């Protein structure tokens, strides 16, 4: 495939909209459309889904004509690490407690930076976790166990 298509901003933008619109329509196929007088739960979603597909087609066409490219990097490192740290936080809040969840979140997300420094971040994570325990758990009284057993 032509590499400029793979990096074509509006082609991807159009495809994204078409995908969202199509998904919206597909899921909404079971919702009653209703009549003009009594609109069913399906009316609004179906209209919106159709609109998105139209917008998507238009933007896709613009992209093919102009060939504008996506600028800058995808910052893949941050794009993977930051959501992953959040997910780990969520899991640890349920199975590990507030302290491990915070430590993992802060330390984990810090590794997303290219200027990551191990010792500095470790100290920072411990300090910030201590601060958050003091403010949110002891101060504001959020009902989170600091540490729970695994399993």
């Amino acid at each position, binding site marked *: 495939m032509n590499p400029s298509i793979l990096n074509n*901003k*509006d082609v991807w*933008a159009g495809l*994204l*909209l078409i995908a*969202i619109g199509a998904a*919206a329509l597909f*899921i*909404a196929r079971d*919702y*009653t459309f209703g*009549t*003009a*007088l*009594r*609109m*069913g*739960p399906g009316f*609004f*979603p179906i209209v*919106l889904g159709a*609109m*998105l597909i139209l*917008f*998507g087609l238009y*933007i896709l066409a613009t992209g093919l004509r102009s060939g504008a490219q*996506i600028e*800058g990097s*995808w*910052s893949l490192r*941050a*794009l993977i690490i*930051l*959501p*992953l*740290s*959040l*997910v780990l*936080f*969520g899991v640890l*809040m*349920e199975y590990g407690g507030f302290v491990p969840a915070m430590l993992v*979140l*802060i*330390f984990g*997300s*810090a590794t*997303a*930076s*290219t*200027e*990551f420094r191990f010792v*500095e*971040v470790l100290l*920072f*994570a411990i300090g*910030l976790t201590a601060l*958050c325990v003091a403010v*949110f758990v002891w101060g504001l009284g*959020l009902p989170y166990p600091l540490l729970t057993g695994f399993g």
Partner: protein
Amino acid sequence: MDLFGNLIFGFSVALSWQNLGYCLIGVTVGTLIGVLPGIGPLGTIAILMPITYGVSPVGALIMLAGIYYGAQYGGSTTAILVNLPGETSAVVTCIDGYQMARQGRAGPALAIAAIGSFFAGTVGTLLIALAGPPLAEVALKFGSPEYFSLMLMGLVAAAVLAQGDMVKSLAMVAVGLLFGIVGTDVNTGVQRYTFGVTELSDGIGFIVVAVGVFAIGEIVGNLGGKEERRVFGAKVTHLFPTKDDMRRSIGPILRGTGIGSFFGVLPGTGPAIASFASYMLEKKLADDPARFGKGAIEGVAAPEAANNADAQCKFIPMLTLGLPASGVMALMLGALAIQGIQPGPEVMALRPDLFWGLVASMWIGNLMLVVLNLPMIGLWVKLLQVPYRLLFPAIMAFSAIGIYSVNNSSFEIYLTALFGIFGFVCMKLGFPPAPMLLGYVLGPMMEENLRRSMLMSGGDPTVFVTHPISAAFIIATVLILLVMVVPAVRARRMEIAD
């Protein structure tokens, strides 16, 4: 109703110890994030919103509003001293502000920025107080068709006037509307787009969307670019502007306030547009336009007044019509809804303390900001030395705690992670995220009003053009769309966006 009595009442609300405290917290946090590049008012308000649950509605609104206009003050500090816009609205201030700082005139530049902002803030507050009650009066007569058309106009205008690609903005509004209707349908009880997940039956959490897109997505974007080196332009020695500075600044401040107020009530235009327009006007009016870009004080005074007037006037449609004119205002509506207050014209009659208390607090907040920003400038400058590599993990931590504390649910954390990715992808592909938030907030209300209108009219869609007020909104919507299709306007718009 007399304005004077209402304002006195407002001050009696705003001057309570608690509300003064919330105001101070708000403007302090606002200045803080305004000074720091890489975190904006949208993300901050979204992150801090859960904290306001336990606060009274007035206090919550006062604090969140303080963050918003406080950020406008803080943003100019960074622009002048470091030549980096702390907020997007301060982009224009960099041009002449930084040059002044390099000439050893950072003090007067900061002072004029603060004075201009304060004056504009005062005028903006007065405008809200003057325009609010009559607007709300009119809006009280609105029925469902009027509301539907008004929201349609608001969304279209916001998308069209926003910076960036118009079609993409409109598409984002539609995406936002779709996200908004996830959950149980109020009329039929049907579960829409919930995938059988119980947590989704109440809809996608407002804070999840806002934090995901505006805090997490933003951070990912920031980490992609290289961290810019911050070089300090100059030491701040003397603060006071000379007589000549003052004389030169009066006109620009007045005109900037006017331009800012005008753009302020338009939906979708960010403060950056207002400040840019006022800068261009001053350059045109100047006797010697060549001075601009080389440290002309007019080039600081006008845009700073304009962006603050714009920020204040954005509250007018939100408070009186329940119509958000920008992403931040959508957050404010969300905050009110969480407090159990249905935003709209009734608010002023039912909760006068809310409206007048907020108006009075804005003036007090502006006064606090002058004090915070000028004598304490050294403290804010120090803050700029906090490296982003430590700042963003802290933002992540506060975001996570904020979201988790709403429902104590890990599911919402996972959803936030998803929205973070989605927000970043959208930004990469040139979709502006703010219109999505507007659509998301207005989605359920729009659908409800559409259904009610159709039920009322017996299924006749012409109801939107036979009701005169509604027809006016529809015509305005069509006009806005038509004007934008005119090639010349489109080209000019692209130029400004660049």
